């Protein structure tokens, strides 16, 4: 209601303005017609009511020199706008409500300032909180803070022009130097103008973390299923190695982590030293990186497999009927167990102290298991070697009956049963 009343009053006032102008003796209007003026006045008044209008400019006046001991602001080099801005921010800080600055070989002005067409100003010019209108000649550099520079036809600025928080409008004058503008200035801005990312809220944080954990779980599950489909035997061997030789796998994994980078360095140096090897360098780098990633990821999935298998078998031993006890189930169960700690962190990570403790525990457990998995992958040569997998020797391989067979001429001795030579446990 109040707003509409204000608007009506504005319209009435606006309608009166042109009639008042007409009442005066006729004089030439340089630009625009009455209709244009009407619209312009209307929008000026509306914007002033809406608070969009810029704060009023200060009364034009000279800025007095700063007290002795205060560093001056030189305008002789305007090539680094941000540095000048930084110096001015300190220098233009009002003391006791009064702005003071010393400009060597120049003058400093507050508010709008103009150089008349018959004037010739020597030295640099600083204009703060105002526009600089140059009609005449300025022999020096010109710097405005929170104001525009307007170089009118026939005017001359012999040096550089810098507008901090303003624009440079050349209406046909001559500018001898370089023109630079920074559209915004921090000189009169609050102390911390940089807006950083908004602090996330607890609910959104929890949601984001849950989504992240779920995404990682799904990704690992997809990779694991692929591994089961295409490399089930290797996965099972690595998994058995983790189960049967966990300590050995962990130590191997730890050593592997320590030696990954030195080994990579040696590989690079070796290839560089051999002339032909240089050409293989990009491929060697890619292959090495791929092998490390595959070993780490495959080892981690094997750990999940081992965990799932152990849990499932224990439940079956307790008499629980499980429909399909296969590698897919083992992986899902194992990954679920691994994700449980991270889920706890997702839900309670925002709690002070406890959240950090949960995260630390989740990280530690994940690292321990990943290290063991990596070591198992190394020990088993990516599931090729079964030496540490604890595979039982088939019972028939333990018989010594073949040693007692009566040799007969023409009949070759029977082969020892089993297709492998046990290297461990004998």
């Amino acid at each position: 209601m109040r707003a509409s009343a204000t608007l009506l009053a504005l319209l009435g006032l606006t309608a009166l303005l042109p009639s008042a102008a007409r009442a005066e003796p006729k004089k030439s209007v340089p630009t625009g017609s009455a209709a244009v003026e009407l619209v312009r006045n209307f929008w000026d008044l509306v914007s002033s009511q809406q608070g969009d209008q810029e704060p009023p400019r200060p009364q034009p006046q000279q800025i007095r020199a700063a007290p002795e001991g205060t560093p001056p602001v030189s305008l002789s080099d305007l090539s680094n706008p941000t540095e000048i801005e930084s110096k001015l921010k300190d220098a233009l800080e009002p003391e006791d409500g009064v702005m003071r600055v010393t400009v060597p070989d120049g003058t400093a002005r507050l508010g709008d300032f103009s150089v008349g067409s018959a004037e010739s100003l020597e030295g640099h010019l600083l204009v703060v909180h105002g526009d600089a209108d140059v009609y005449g000649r300025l022999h020096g550099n010109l710097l405005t803070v929170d104001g525009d520079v307007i170089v009118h036809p026939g005017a001359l600025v012999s040096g550089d022009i810098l507008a901090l928080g303003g624009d440079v409008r050349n209406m046909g004058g001559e500018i001898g130097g370089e023109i630079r503008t920074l559209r915004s200035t921090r000189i009169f801005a609050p102390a911390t103008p940089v807006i950083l990312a908004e602090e996330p809220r607890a609910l959104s944080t929890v949601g984001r973390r849950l989504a992240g954990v779920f995404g990682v779980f799904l990704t690992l599950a997809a990779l694991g299923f692929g591994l089961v489909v295409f490399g089930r035997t290797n996965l099972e061997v690595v998994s058995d190695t983790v189960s049967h030789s966990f300590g050995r796998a962990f130590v191997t994994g730890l050593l592997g982590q320590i030696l990954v980078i030195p080994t990579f360095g040696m590989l690079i140096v070796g290839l560089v030293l051999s002339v032909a090897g240089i050409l293989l360098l990009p491929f060697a780098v890619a292959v090495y990186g791929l092998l490390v990633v595959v070993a780490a990821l495959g080892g981690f999935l094997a750990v999940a497999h081992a965990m799932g298998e152990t849990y499932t078998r224990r439940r079956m031993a307790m008499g629980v009927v499980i429909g399909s006890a296969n590698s897919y189930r083992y992986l899902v169960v194992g990954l679920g167990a691994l994700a449980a700690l991270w889920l706890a962190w997702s839900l309670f990570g925002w709690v002070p102290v406890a959240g950090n403790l949960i995260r630390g525990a989740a990280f530690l457990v994940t690292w321990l298991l990943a290290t063991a998995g990596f070591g198992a992958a190394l020990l088993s040569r990516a599931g090729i070697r079964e030496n540490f997998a604890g595979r039982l020797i088939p019972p028939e391989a333990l018989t010594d009956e073949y040693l007692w067979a009566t040799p007969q001429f023409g009949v070759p001795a029977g082969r020892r049963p089993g297709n492998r030579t046990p290297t461990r446990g004998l």
Partner: protein
Amino acid sequence: MHRAALLALALSLGAGTAAAQDMRAFATFRQLHGETRLRAELDYRAGGLRVAPGRSNELYRMDASYDATRYNPASSYDAASSSVSLGLQPAGQGGLRVVSQRQLRQDANVAFAPDVDLDLDVTLGAVDADLELGGLSLSRLVMQAGASQAVVRFSQPNRSRCRSAEILAGAADVTVLGLGNSRCDRIDFEGGMGRVTLDFEGAWTSSSQAAVKMAVGELTLRLPRRVGVRLTLDRFLASFEPAGLVRTANGFQSPGYDRAERKLDIAVTTAVGGVKIEWADQR
């Protein structure tokens, strides 16, 4: 109820992502005061860059929007040597911010006076660059591109004769279009890894020589039929398909090479990858 819960969760996830960075707008230019030549160094480390011919009454101009927390604008003119340094240089920490590519976007538009002899030295970091050099009076070009994606165009003939164009690319994807318009006596390209396309189409006004060195990657040479082309090839593990070039004692050449009014001699050295020949009228 479930829908409401899901909606609330989605909204809460959406919240908190509104982040801002300290982007600032910087502009610099210089009026033309009768200068006839300009040596320009353009050093641009990250973001998008466009270079094009500018107004005839301005010697140069740069309009940039930059991340003030990481970069500072550079703009310095030396009247004695008639040289200018432009670009965005790291402010201390520099580097790339990896929060959001959309938020990071720095952009700069650089323009040079078309009638002033230009000696241009461009250094690019991680930049998506589009350099339209056709229509300028380019007398010399040196361009070093790091991990950039750069397109250099000569859409119009160079207004003056160019002594040389030297392009050095690291791990970059570089395309140079319309080299026939460049009017460069000599073109040198040296690439590390990546994909490179050199298009020699254009209004050939004189013969030219080009040396192309490529370590690893794919090199495509797009050749005009109206110019006699001779190609010498030094390769190790690189494939090559002559695509109409005739084998000679020293290499390959186009069928009408000896009779051609304008000739282009290209020396290619490549280690790993492939050299592909395309004819400009086959596109």
